[in-house]
């Protein structure tokens, strides 16, 4: 038997962190949130999460096949996209629309750019933006949390036949839970000036997308990822800080009109977006200064859309905007290389830019 000698270039000591490992831990961190969502909204939410995830996996496999790549299902990234996307949709979202969202997320958000690591925008949010533009009514039709019969059956909209309009939910939702208004806390604040209390948010007894109410759970799962260094803690800190400071500023200007920062932090998808979506490695900046700028930008834009935009919730568009700006932010916040001397003048720079003699252009 011959001895096998391996020749390798450095680095020789590696930590063992791989894309698969990081992604798997993100899936693990998302599972408690998904479980809470199912407990809140029952079978409809479960069916939605499973369908959207399967659609993402199916889309990923299809595009692997079409582009002649090896299957990338085992890197868990499509699973994350599916889980995250499902958690941002209303719990009673028709399953066929969920499947469209999942497929659009992978096709438009990921496969078009060349797959994992090459995407410019967060795939889950691309999928959500697509169905938001395609089915604006269904994506703002909400169901009550903790309805008594949530494990006894599905919401009538869940099994809408493909391509068909979902039935009207208001009668069913009223019978499922007394006094259900069908509006999210953000919409109630914007249109009726009624503020939900922090207790409502923390118990999860609010109308919302499947996985965005459990603020404490999201923070805990995010803390786990940050502690294992699978996530940059500065991004959620910057997003939440930016949003809170902006909200505080507006509240100081006009306390009667603008809600307190805590309401802004707990309502809508800000928590989920800040912890799990803005931190997507492929679509966020990498420079130390850049991540703060990027996060703060998302936080500020979110509050601006909520306060002054036509929509009640702005996290999705804020993060997509942040994603689009990430390469630019990276470019302008390049740290100085150790020992580098700043170019004295434009002339000196232009001289350096020329290729040296004998160097291939």
């Amino acid at each position, binding site marked *: 038997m011959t001895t096998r000698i391996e020749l390798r270039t450095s680095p020789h000591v590696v930590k063992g962190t791989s894309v698969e490992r990081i992604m798997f831990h993100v899936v693990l961190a998302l599972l408690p949130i998904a479980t809470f969502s199912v407990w809140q909204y029952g079978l409809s939410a479960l069916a939605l999460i499973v369908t959207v995830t399967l659609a993402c996996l199916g889309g990923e496999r299809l595009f692997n096949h079409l582009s002649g790549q090896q299957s990338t299902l085992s890197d868990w990234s499509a699973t994350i996209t599916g889980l995250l996307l499902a958690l941002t949709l209303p719990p009673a979202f028709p399953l066929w*629309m969920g499947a469209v969202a999942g497929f659009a997320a992978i096709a*438009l958000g990921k496969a078009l750019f060349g797959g994992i690591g090459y995407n410019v925008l967060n795939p889950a949010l691309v999928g959500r933006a*697509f169905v938001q*533009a*395609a*089915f*604006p009514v*269904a994506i703002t039709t909400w169901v009550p949390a903790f309805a008594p019969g949530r494990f006894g059956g599905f919401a009538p909209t869940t099994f*809408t*036949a493909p*391509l*068909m*309009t*979902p039935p009207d939910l208001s009668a069913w939702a009223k019978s499922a839970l007394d006094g259900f208004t069908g509006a999210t806390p953000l919409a109630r604040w914007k249109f009726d000036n009624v503020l939900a209390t922090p207790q409502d948010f923390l118990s999860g007894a609010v109308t919302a997308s499947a996985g965005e109410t459990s603020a404490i759970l999201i923070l805990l799962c995010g803390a786990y990822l940050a502690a294992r260094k699978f996530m940059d803690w500065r991004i959620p800190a910057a997003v939440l800080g930016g949003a809170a400071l902006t909200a505080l500023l507006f509240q100081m200007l006009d306390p009667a009109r603008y809600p307190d920062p805590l309401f802004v932090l707990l309502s809508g998808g800000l928590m989920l977006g800040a912890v799990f979506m803005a931190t997507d490695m492929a679509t966020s900046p990498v420079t130390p200064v850049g991540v703060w700028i990027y996060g703060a930008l998302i936080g500020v834009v979110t509050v601006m859309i909520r306060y002054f935009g036509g929509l009640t919730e702005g996290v999705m568009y804020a993060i997509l905007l942040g994603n689009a700006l990430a390469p630019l932010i990276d470019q302008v916040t390049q740290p100085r290389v150790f020992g580098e001397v700043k170019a004295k003048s434009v002339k000196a720079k232009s001289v350096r830019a020329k290729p040296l003699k004998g160097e*291939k*252009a």
Partner: protein
Amino acid sequence: MSIPGQKPLSNLEELLEGVWKQNPVFVMVLGMCPTLAVSVSAMNAVSMGLATTFVLLGSTLLVSLLRNVIPKEVRIATYILIIATFVTVVDYLIQAISLAVYDALGAFIQLIVVNCIILGRAEAHASKNPPLKAVLNALGMGVGFTLGLFALGGVREILGAGKLFGISLFGPDFQPWVVMVLPPGGFFVLGAWLLLFNWLNSRKAAPVKPVEGHAHV
């Protein structure tokens, strides 16, 4: 297209050029303004395609006939004048045939004047070829443009309204995909068709592998 030094195309090849190989929408990606703007429904798309084909036929015939008379220095202005004449004709024609279509297409009928497919044909083909070839080429381009518009308009109408040429396909319960009748839908569908065309073409060209080691940085 007849490039100097190349074998001239036969009449049939000239006709088929625009339908597939040099399809104005999917291969040359010309005339995107009307393509994206009026392809909301199949009816609008086909009307626009036919109107453009008419202008294309008339103007290339005239340009081809006058190709030895038009002074080189003012040829573009002359082409525009000829094209504008036919656009005026088609503008009044559509108004007379169907006011509904006229209203739906709006300013895009007049904007056929600046459609780069037509000016492109006049400059690159009709001014260098005899009338028969020029008209055959223009007919192919017109058919290709109409097909391209129909491919977009058909998909957008089916998904955006559940109809094709106004006939309901899925019954009254159909859920329209609102995005498809909005501008982003036009880009999505156009992108998908371009993807399909490029994919088909690359499959055809697959046996020729790029030679490695010749990549320029």
